[in-house]
């Protein structure tokens, strides 16, 4: 039972309540840094670290933080994790840090992270909060990666820097420019909504058939 509960919190972030595809949160990094798969992964990992770390601390201290100053406390905790991620990336992978530039400090302003603290971590026990954070962060990483992969393949003819096509491939430069982000995200959201629509329709059909059968 307990195991199912954690699993439920994990899987809801990855699929049903996916922060990007279902909640449409965190659009700023989503559109800005997904021009290549490697940037998307770096951004996803940094967000993962910040989200899981903050959720753990917020949930652990939830009984000590007075309600009136909770948002300020969450922001202090998030900003500290972001600074740690910023310096770590700068020291370990300076090239990637250069590419991501201003978007690492901007993780502080990612509403996905503050949203999870306010809506979940500050109300639930640590174990569930961490599972929820991992689920949301993995969901965010998957979303970033799917956008980054599509844009890099079409816009540069490569994936993770490895050329996929012969020299005759003419890259769709627009895909790695800002409009490409909007186009790709639009098509992916369209697919998700169509899928949800079809699923609801199917469930309605099943209910209908059951009603008639009984």
């Amino acid at each position: 039972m307990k195991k199912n509960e954690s699993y439920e919190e994990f899987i809801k972030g990855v699929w049903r309540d996916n922060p990007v595809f279902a909640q449409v949160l965190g659009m700023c990094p989503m559109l800005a840094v997904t021009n290549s798969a490697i940037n998307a992964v770096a951004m996803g990992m940094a967000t993962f670290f910040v989200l899981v770390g903050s959720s753990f601390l917020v949930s652990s201290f939830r009984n000590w933080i007075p309600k009136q100053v909770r948002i300020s406390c969450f922001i202090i905790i998030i900003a500290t994790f972001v600074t740690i991620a910023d310096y770590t990336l700068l020291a370990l992978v300076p090239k990637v840090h250069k590419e991501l530039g201003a978007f690492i400090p901007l993780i502080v302003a990612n509403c996905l992270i503050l949203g999870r603290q306010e809506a979940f971590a500050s109300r639930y026990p640590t174990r569930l909060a961490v599972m929820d954070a991992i689920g949301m962060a993995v969901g965010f990483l998957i979303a970033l990666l799917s956008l980054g992969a599509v844009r890099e393949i079409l816009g540069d003819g490569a994936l993770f820097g490895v050329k996929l096509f012969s020299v005759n491939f003419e890259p769709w430069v627009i895909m790695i420019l800002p409009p490409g982000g909007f186009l790709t995200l639009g098509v992916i959201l369209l697919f998700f909504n169509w899928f949800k629509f079809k699923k609801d329709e199917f469930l309605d059909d099943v209910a209908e058939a059951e009603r008639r059968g009984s």
Partner: protein
Amino acid sequence: MTTDTNKQAAPPSSMRLVLTLAIAGLISGIAIIGIYESTLPTITANKARELREAVFKVLPGVTRMQALVNRNGELVAVEAPDKDEPVIYGGYDETREFVGYAMPAAGPGFQDTIAILYGYKPDEKLVVGMEVLESRETPGLGDKIYKDAVWVAGFNALSVEPEIVAVKKGTKRSPNEIDAITGATISSKAVVRIINEAHTAWSSNLPPPGSEPTIQETETANTEAGQ
């Protein structure tokens, strides 16, 4: 729900709110200082290594370098240049013979500042190499200023007299002309302009060829320079 206890209890005193935030700030400050101190050596070492690699790249045959600054109209070697002081790097070969200068230069590009480093041989008045250190030019178009190998190789022997001119691809006639990149005209012209401006600014401050400062450092290649 755990927040229920908070809702029913009397509002906490201002003292408690102030204290909570102060403690949170203090812990966060300590954590940030910790991570800053522990990553600083790696970050400075990375930057120094990048600079050394760039200097060796734009000045073929160079194995030693030193930072040079202009003080009282004279070019002198310094261990650590002052902050914001314009600095160039002197490159020397195995026999401690002067080869050329590596000049950092920066200026506006299509989107943001482009920072480059170029190698310059004063005796031949030639640019012998160019490396883009920083740029946010458009991916796929403007970023060819460092991804297009033909364009970068165009800087391997480029005369600065009277000045470098970017011309339409395939129309290079004289030693001071370079073929601009098709589809990245603004970015390629920006690089040329940056070099021209830096050259004009420095040329009057460089000593006549043959009387360059001699190399100070006694150790070989791996001494930290330019920090």
